[in-house]
């Protein structure tokens, strides 16, 4: 009963279908707008609505833009010139400083982040998709109870289980190894929930029934029919998983001590610690932050279709 609301916006088919129709933003046939402009006091209201939208977007964009401008400045200009102006263009020197610090450990951190996030996105995504598919397509005893466990997993915040995980991992002796990160990132209850929604809206029961009549076993039908049909859902789940792992801070902070194993989020926070007493470190910290944001920004811009569908199918996190 408590699951009711969680389910509401993602009624099988409803959410995803809506997304497909509106995948490209405001492209749907608009309500007759042109004729209303004159009737509604027209220009003034159009102006104020759009002005407010621009104001809101400015709040969202300016801090990111600041990061870009600041990354191009040396220490003197960072503290000496106006924030949104170009000083002496020192971006490449800053990048060189980032690359040179501690023997190029920054790129190692980036590589670690990519490894952890890609591993979790692909393998963790597949695990979630399989489970979600099973919850949608198979009948078995105790289905409701098992799914309640999944929802419980959705409701407990990540950070509440990080310390318990650390405590258990230290007994198992795997703290400060990659396993301390790679095992937890496979667990994505929300992915299971999403996959169930995708499965019921993308994979028609008739197709599976036809495959069964033709003699295909359930595993074969999953890999040759179900999974390809759910591919957009798989990509969406994987994308959110990737971003979640890339952004994760507390888990690696708690689990890892070896600098060589850190993901970029924790690495940069260590550098930030240096820059407080020594402001000359600031351009390096800022440039490193800027570099670490680029892959995610690129992914989000290129994969717009997928994250929008993920948000629609059940409002993530």
């Amino acid at each position, binding site marked *: 009963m*408590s699951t*009711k*609301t969680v389910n509401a*916006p993602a009624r099988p088919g409803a959410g995803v279908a*809506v997304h497909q129709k*509106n995948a*490209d933003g*405001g492209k749907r046939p608009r309500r007759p*707008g042109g004729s209303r402009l004159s009737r*509604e006091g027209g220009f003034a209201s*159009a102006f104020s*609505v759009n002005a*407010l*939208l621009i104001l809101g*977007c400015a709040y969202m964009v300016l*801090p*990111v833009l*600041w*990061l870009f401008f*600041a990354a191009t400045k040396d220490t003197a200009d960072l503290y000496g010139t106006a*924030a*949104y102006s170009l000083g002496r263009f020192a971006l490449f020197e800053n990048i060189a400083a980032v690359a040179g610090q501690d023997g190029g450990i920054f790129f190692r951190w980036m590589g670690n982040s990519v490894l952890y996030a890609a591993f979790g996105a692909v393998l963790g995504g597949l*695990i979630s998709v*399989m489970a979600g598919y099973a919850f949608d397509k*198979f*009948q*078995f005893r105790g289905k409701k109870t098992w799914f309640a*466990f999944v929802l419980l*997993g959705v*409701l*407990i915040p990540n*950070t*509440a*289980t990080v*310390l*318990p995980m*650390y*405590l*258990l991992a230290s007994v198992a002796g795997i703290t400060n190894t990659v396993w301390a990160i790679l*095992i937890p990132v496979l*667990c994505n*209850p929300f992915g299971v929930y999403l996959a169930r929604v995708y499965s019921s809206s993308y994979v028609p029961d008739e197709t599976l029934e036809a495959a*069964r009549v033709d003699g295909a076993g*359930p595993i074969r039908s999953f890999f040759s029919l179900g999974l390809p049909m759910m591919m957009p859902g798989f990509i969406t789940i994987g994308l959110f998983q990737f971003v979640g792992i890339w*952004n994760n*801070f507390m888990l690696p902070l708690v689990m890892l001590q070896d600098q060589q194993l850190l993901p970029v*989020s*924790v690495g*940069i926070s260590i550098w*930030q610690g240096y820059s407080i007493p020594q402001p000359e470190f*600031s351009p390096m910290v*800022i440039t490193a932050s800027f570099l670490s*944001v680029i892959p*995610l*920004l690129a*992914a*989000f811009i290129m994969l717009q279709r997928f994250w929008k569908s993920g948000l629609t199918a059940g*409002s*993530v*996190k």
Partner: protein
Amino acid sequence: MATKSRTMSGTGGRTAALFLIPFFTVFTVAMIAPVIYSLVLSFYAQQKSGLGFGGAKTSFVGLENYLQVFQSETFTGGLGRLALYCLLYIPCMVGGAVVFALLLDATVARARKLFQLLVFLPHAVPGVIAALIWAYLYTPGVSPLVQALESGGIQINFLDVHMVLPSIVNIAVWEWTGYNVIILFTALQAVPREILEAARVDGASEIRTALSIKFPLILPALSVIILFTVIGTLQLFTEPAIISKATASVTSTWVPNLWAYDAAFNRHNLNQAAAASIIIALLAAGLSLAVTRLSSRMNKA
């Protein structure tokens, strides 16, 4: 029995198990087992022998750790701070998202696709980096914000003891508003056009339509957003952890998560850290359940 298992082939328990075992294995290893282990740990305590020499003895202490956690002023202070944070953050973020989504859905809005992308931009910035950017934007000397306010005759120290909580709220608002705008905007786009058309024919103004027709229709989406926001606020860790390096106003026990971290890694009291983690998890589960109940009642009404 034989015929049954044949007709059920492919949909039976055994195949389902094959698909579910990987997930429930990681779920057990990464969630259930840690929580159970912490629960056990939270009932024990390490007691040093008289002079502090020799090995520490582990003994069962019942609820002693929980009592100590709740008696700790820093922990209850952190809980209070977290409550205040929720009271500021949830209305600001959710309210902002609703207003922005309604504006975006107004008939006169232009360039919707671009606005959607821009408003979502902060979500692509990791929490650590977001906190770091804002830490600079709060620091006099570097910050264009502080400078602009000063030239307007306003002197604010964003990082002092009183301002630091709203300052952290602002970081979270910045990170999450756009994300929720997209969810609400999609819900708005699904509002049947006939209803809006009927309202228009009846002479309802745009603002009136937004408030009395569109808003009630997106309430289900809104309740899900509130649920996930509540869960999210209890996670508060990254932002204060980063900001704490830039100012002494954020102590090492500022919110419950930081308190638990501090207990484990600075005070080396793993049993207390376990108890605190259990308290946070229970609080989260309880709160989410309450929000779910409340919103399902609201939606029925």
